[in-house]
C-alpha cells in the first residue's frame, strides 16, 4: 500500500468516526446520550402539531421527574410557545434552578420539547468575615442557609440586605455587606459574607426649624431621651424615629393637636462619620378644651366622670392628662363592680374658637367599640376654604 493510499484510508476512517458521534459532550446540562442522531436544528416555523413529549434534563433523575410532573399534563396539547414560556417559568421557580433553556424539535406525530436546566451548586460552608458589631455566630444563627442547601443567590442577597439594615440600626450607617462563592471540592461552594462595618456615625448637629411654642432646648432634651439622638453621640435611625413620636406627643400635650413634623433630613458628612439632622416643625394652632360631657350607661353621675377626667373647659388640650383621667374612670368602674364598662372619647373641633369638645361614651360589655384608652388626638380639621 502506498503512503498516499494509507493516509487516505486513515483520514477516511477518522472522518467516519467524527461523523458517527465520536465527539464527547462537555456540556453537563445536555442529556447524557441521545438515542438518535439529529440533523441541523429545526426552524421555529416547523414546530407544529401536538406536544408528544416533554423532557427535563440537567437535573438529578428524582428532581427532573418532579419538575416533569408539573408540566407533563401538557403532553397532547397543541404546541404553543406561550405555553412553553409558562413551563420555563415553572421550572425556574424550583429550588436550586439557575437557568432554563427550552428547546423543541419536530418529532413523530408532533413536537418534542425539552427543558435544559442548569442547577446552582450545593453549599459546603457558610462564613461571615469582618463583622465586629455583631458576632459572626449571631449572623450565622439567623442566616437560614446551611451546608447541603442549594446555593440560592436570591436568599443570599436578602440576607445581605438584612445584615446591612441591622448594622445601620447599630449606627454603622455606611455598612456594606457583600456575598461571594468560593469553589469547593465536589462541585460545591463555600458561601462567604464579607462585612465592612464602617465607622459608627455620630450626630454632629441638629437643626430645628418652625418651633415657636416649644424652645429648642426642650426639643433637644426630648430627642436625647432614653438613649436617643444626642449631639456627639452615635446616630441611630430607630432612636430618631422613636424620638419623633415623643416630640409629637409633647406638642399634643400643649394643645398643638395639628402639629406636623416632617421626615427628618439626614445629611451625612463627606467622610461618612457625622450625621447632621434637620427637623422642620409646623406647630399649627393651639387648642383649648370646649364642652365636656359624659353619656351612655353611666355607673355614676356625669359630673363624677368629668371630675375624674381631671380637665376643665377652657384649659389647654393635653392628651396625656386626658389619658390619665380615662384610666381613673376605668378604675372607678372596677371599684364599683363594673370592670367591663368601656369608655371611649369622641372629639369635635371648633376651628373658629380653637376648641375641642370631648364627649365620653360609656358602654356596657355587649357593645362593640374601639379600644377605650388612650384617647386618640382629635382628627385633623378640614382645610379652611
Amino acid at each position, binding site marked *: 500500500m*502506498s*503512503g*498516499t*493510499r494509507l*493516509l*487516505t484510508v486513515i*483520514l*477516511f476512517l477518522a*472522518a*467516519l468516526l467524527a*461523523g458517527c458521534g465520536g465527539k464527547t459532550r462537555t456540556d453537563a446540562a445536555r442529556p447524557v446520550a441521545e438515542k*438518535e*442522531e*439529529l*440533523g*441541523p*436544528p*429545526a*426552524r*421555529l416555523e*416547523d*414546530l407544529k402539531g401536538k406536544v408528544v413529549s416533554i423532557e427535563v434534563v440537567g437535573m438529578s433523575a428524582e428532581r427532573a421527574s418532579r419538575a416533569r410532573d408539573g408540566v407533563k399534563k401538557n403532553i397532547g396539547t397543541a404546541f404553543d*410557545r*406561550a405555553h*412553553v*414560556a409558562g413551563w*420555563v*417559568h415553572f421550572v*425556574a*421557580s424550583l429550588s436550586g434552578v439557575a*437557568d*432554563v*433553556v*427550552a*428547546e*423543541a*424539535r*419536530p*418529532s413523530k406525530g408532533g413536537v418534542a*420539547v*425539552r427543558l435544559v436546566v442548569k442547577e446552582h451548586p450545593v453549599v459546603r460552608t457558610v462564613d461571615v468575615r469582618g463583622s465586629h458589631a455583631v458576632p459572626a455566630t449571631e449572623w450565622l444563627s439567623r442566616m437560614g442557609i446551611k451546608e447541603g442547601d442549594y446555593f440560592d*443567590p*436570591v436568599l*443570599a*442577597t*436578602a440576607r445581605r*440586605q438584612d445584615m446591612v439594615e441591622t448594622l445601620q440600626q447599630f449606627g454603622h450607617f455606611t455598612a456594606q455587606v457583600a456575598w461571594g462563592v468560593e469553589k469547593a471540592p465536589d462541585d460545591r461552594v463555600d458561601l462567604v459574607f464579607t462585612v465592612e462595618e464602617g465607622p459608627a456615625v455620630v450626630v454632629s448637629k441638629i437643626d430645628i426649624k418652625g418651633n415657636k411654642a416649644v424652645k429648642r432646648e426642650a426639643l433637644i432634651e426630648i430627642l436625647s431621651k432614653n438613649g436617643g439622638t444626642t449631639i456627639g453621640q452615635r446616630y441611630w435611625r430607630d432612636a430618631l424615629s422613636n424620638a419623633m413620636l415623643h416630640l409629637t406627643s409633647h406638642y399634643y400635650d400643649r394643645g398643638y393637636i395639628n402639629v406636623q413634623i*416632617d421626615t427628618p433630613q439626614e445629611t451625612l458628612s463627606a467622610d461618612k462619620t457625622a450625621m447632621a439632622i434637620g427637623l422642620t416643625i409646623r406647630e399649627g394652632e393651639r387648642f383649648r378644651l370646649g364642652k365636656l360631657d359624659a353619656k351612655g350607661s353611666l355607673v355614676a353621675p356625669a359630673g363624677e366622670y368629668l371630675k375624674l377626667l381631671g380637665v376643665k373647659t377652657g384649659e389647654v388640650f393635653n392628651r396625656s392628662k386626658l389619658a390619665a383621667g380615662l384610666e381613673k374612670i376605668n378604675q372607678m368602674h372596677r371599684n364599683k363592680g363594673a370592670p367591663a364598662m368601656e369608655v371611649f372619647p369622641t372629639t369635635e373641633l371648633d376651628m373658629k374658637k380653637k376648641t375641642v369638645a370631648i364627649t365620653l361614651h360609656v358602654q356596657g360589655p355587649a357593645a362593640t367599640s374601639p379600644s377605650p384608652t388612650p384617647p386618640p388626638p382629635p382628627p385633623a380639621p378640614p382645610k379652611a376654604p
Partner: protein
Amino acid sequence: MLRSGMRAAAVCIGTALGLLSGSAAADKQPGWVQVDRIAAVVNQDVILASELARRVAPLAPGPGKPPPPGAERQMLEAMIDELLFTQEASRARIEVSFQEVEGAIQEIKRANQLDDAGLLKALEQQGYTLELYREDVRQQILRLRAINQVIRPRVVVRDDEVEAAYKEAKKADPKLGAFDKEKDRLRNQMIEQRMAAEAQKWLIERRLGSYIAVRGS
C-alpha cells in the same frame, strides 16, 4: 509526487465526506431549536427572552427589521424595573380583579375605537394573544397601584411651595391666571414630578437590595 498525491487524497476525502454528510443529513430528524430561555433573573422571578422579544418588536422600524441597537437592553432594564414594582405589589398584597382588567381593556378598546375583532388583530400584530394581554394589563394596574401605595406617601407638596411655584410661573408668564385658578394644576404637576423622582430613587434602592442577573443569549 507525494505532495500531489496528498492533494488528490484531500479532494477525494472532501468529496467523500460531503457525500456522506449530505446523505446522512437527509435521513436525520431535525435537531433541537431554542424556543425560549431566561433573559434575566430578578429576585425570585425571571424575564424570558420571548417576553422581551414581544416588548421589543414594536420598536423595530418595520416588519422583519431588527430593533435599533441597544433597544433590547434598554427594554430589559425597563422590564426589570417593572418587575421590581410588581414584586412590591405582591409584598403589599395588592390585588387586581378580573373585572378590573376587563374594565381596563374595554376602556382601551373605547379609546382606540376598536371592537373585539379589531383588538385581537392589533394584539396579534404585536405578538400578543388576548390571554397574554390580559396578564400584561393586570401587571400594569398592579404596578400603578404599587407606585401609588409606595411612592405617593413619600411625596409632600406644601402650600407655600405651590405659592412659590405660582410666583415663579407668573414671573415667566404674566398672562397666567389667578392663583386660585392655577393652584390645583400646579400642585398636580409638582406631585407628578416629585413622584417620578421618588420612583427613580426607590428603584435605585430596590435594585441595590435585589438579586438581578442578566443572562446572555
